[in-house]
């Protein structure tokens, strides 16, 4: 048990919290038809994270978040400029900007010598879950011991803060976001600017990219952003259920991925675990395939409906009593 607390608890929590925060924000991306933005921002924030890390010399959240937001805003402006001048379709302009900024981030990692400290290319590609350990744990009692809890990895605390912020904003803007997602024109006419929501989404996504960076890196974060919302979309048409299902899928993805990659090989006594961040994406892929094939809108659902139509009684609506 102590070993689990020391070696796995922080990483498992980070995986679940990262997927949960990203998954909830992903609903906004999916419902406002901006999934590509998650793709673009998660790549484009890399130079901001590296510069924030280099300037502050620590993994503390505020400088990294500031750097990432600056990079995200720069990317958004650059995309607009490139679109205006080249008159290319938005996807192409995004491709130019985010691949360029990602390359800049990779080179900055080497140039700033951030590599020598804690941040390296591997971390960008798969995160650093294995670095999240809690050596102060002495048993279950440590969970209630303030001194031991103070030693808990800061990355996990940051993730918890970002998740709380996301939940708070979602609760605060619950009705408005529903309006923007389903009827942007009406939202505009009653004075709730979709632009405000776009900025909000931009800020939340870049914050989530930073928070999830240590857990899953900056490529696999796209899976955490898009997959839970997509799974929910394949299962329901209801706004509230969309968020609830995506939250469940996110927890299953984070926890299940870590379990399958680290805990199962450990229990089987295999010397070498699998990559946990990658396994989270694989679990998400399996859930997605299941939702796609067995969900109400997939082939199985269509077959069920067809069977119901063929066998079921033909209901003639009774004339309404006047």
């Amino acid at each position, binding site marked *: 048990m102590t070993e689990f607390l020391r070696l796995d608890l922080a990483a498992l929590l980070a995986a679940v919290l990262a997927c949960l925060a990203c998954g909830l924000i992903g609903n906004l991306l999916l419902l406002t038809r901006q999934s590509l933005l998650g793709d673009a921002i998660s790549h484009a924030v890399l130079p901001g994270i590296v510069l924030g890390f280099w300037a502050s010399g620590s993994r503390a959240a505020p400088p990294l978040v500031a750097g990432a937001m600056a990079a995200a805003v720069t990317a958004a402006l650059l995309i607009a400029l490139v679109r205006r*001048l080249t008159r290319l379709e938005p996807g*192409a302009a995004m491709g130019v900007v985010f691949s360029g900024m990602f390359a800049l981030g990779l080179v900055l990692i080497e140039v700033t010598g951030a590599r020598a400290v804690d941040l390296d290319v591997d971390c960008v*590609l798969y995160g650093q879950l294995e670095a999240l350990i809690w050596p102060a744990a002495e048993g279950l009692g440590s969970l209630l011991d303030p001194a031991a809890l103070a030693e808990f990895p800061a990355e996990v605390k940051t993730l918890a803060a970002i998740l709380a912020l996301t939940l708070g904003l979602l609760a605060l803007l619950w009705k408005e976001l529903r309006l923007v997602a389903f009827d942007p024109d009406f939202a505009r006419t009653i004075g709730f600017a979709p632009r405000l929501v776009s900025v909000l989404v931009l800020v939340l996504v870049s914050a989530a990219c930073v928070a999830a960076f240590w857990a899953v890196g900056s490529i696999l974060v796209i899976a955490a952003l898009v997959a839970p919302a997509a799974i929910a*979309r394949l299962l329901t048409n209801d706004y509230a259920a969309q968020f609830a299902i995506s939250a469940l899928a996110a927890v299953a993805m984070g926890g299940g991925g870590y379990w399958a990659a680290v805990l199962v090989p450990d229990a089987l006594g295999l010397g070498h675990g699998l990559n946990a961040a990658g396994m989270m*994406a694989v679990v998400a892929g399996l859930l997605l395939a299941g939702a796609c094939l067995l969900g109400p809108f997939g082939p199985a659902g269509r077959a069920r409906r067809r069977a119901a139509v063929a066998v079921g009684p033909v209901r003639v609506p009774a004339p309404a009593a006047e």
Partner: protein
Amino acid sequence: MNGALLEALLFAGGYNAAVVALGCAAFGLAAGAVGCFVLLRGRALIADAAAHATLPGVAGAFILAAAMGWDARSLPLLLAGGAVTAGLAVLVVSALTRGGRLRDDAAMALVLSIGFGLGVVLVSVVQSLAVGGQAGLKSFILGQAAGMRASDAQLIGALAALSALLVAVLFKPLAALCFDRDFAAAVGLPVRTLDLGLLALMLAVTVTGLRAVGLVLVVALMVIPAATARLATERLEVMVPLAGALGAFAAWFGVALSAALPNLPTGATIALVACGVFALALAFAPRRGALAFAWRQARLSLAVARDHALRAALEQAEAAAAPGRGAPLTWAEIGRGAGWTAWQRAVLPRWMRASGLVAQDPRRGDGVTLTPAGLAAARELTRRHRLWEHYMQAAGGLAPAAAHRLADQVEHTLPPEVAREAEAWLSRHDPGRLRPDDVGLPRPGEAIPERRG
């Protein structure tokens, strides 16, 4: 560093290094040329998704080779594995969007990240295997030209040359496909086959670039040189070779840089070189660049302000011709009437005097009067403005004030041919408005009390 860079640039680093640089440059050429069509067909992001989805194929081929006892470092085998999963990724994207529940952007993001995640898991499986060469797999993610064998570079060069040749042969049908798919189908081109062919070319270029540029950034070398060439030219027959040349340059220079600075990942270096060229083009491209754009805007706003001033001066002169009214204008009055901004007030008087449109008024020290040339220009402008006002009122049924505002917006930008067409329309439908007087057209009456810019 300088010596090493120069050596690498001049292919002087030995036979192996020279072959590697040439192979990478050939890849850059093919990527730039194919990238133009990928970009114009709107396939940039699906190329990125396919590139990320090569990782499970490459790692899977490595595991297969290790299990069967083949050479796990054989590049053709690994690239074939990557091509298989990249092709599957394209199929999965179209399957996911078919139900109508997920849009294509979500589907591409899903395939990109889940494919990459599966690859990462397989790479971690490879690392637990007891065979050599696992470290080499990493070079497929971020690219590593250093340590590439000459035979690998030859394979890459051959694949790239084949792709470039196919682009040259299929240039015309591909161009028709990218510009107007319906037209291409109407003239009997097999558009579905062509679309599949373009997809196959894209996949071929993607796997060709894996070893040198890496799967994360291989799309950069398809998209960035093509976008750069697009800034420089409108014509596809110039754009494709130009993008190819830029891609070849970026690959060659990037490989040389990463040879001189061995810590830099080759793929990122090549992409940054391409980005640098793109940034230069974005700023300095002759017609579409940011500077040319700003210069055109400034010229236009100056010309509009000058035209407003000329019209104001002419109207003042017309009013002065009536007995007991008017005096020559001062620059301050003209500037106010024409709505000049501060920098226009500074520049325009000098420009208008230098181009001989105005002169000092003899009757008043700070007054301004139109020269004969200025008068002619002002008459022409006023005539065109009133022509547009009449046209808007007659053809568009606008109120005079609205017609004035709208005429102000179009008269500076619409070419004279269009103005002549408007005049011809007026002479056919409402000839009464075209009575000639001192400036060729009557003023549209008292309905427009103020003539302010």
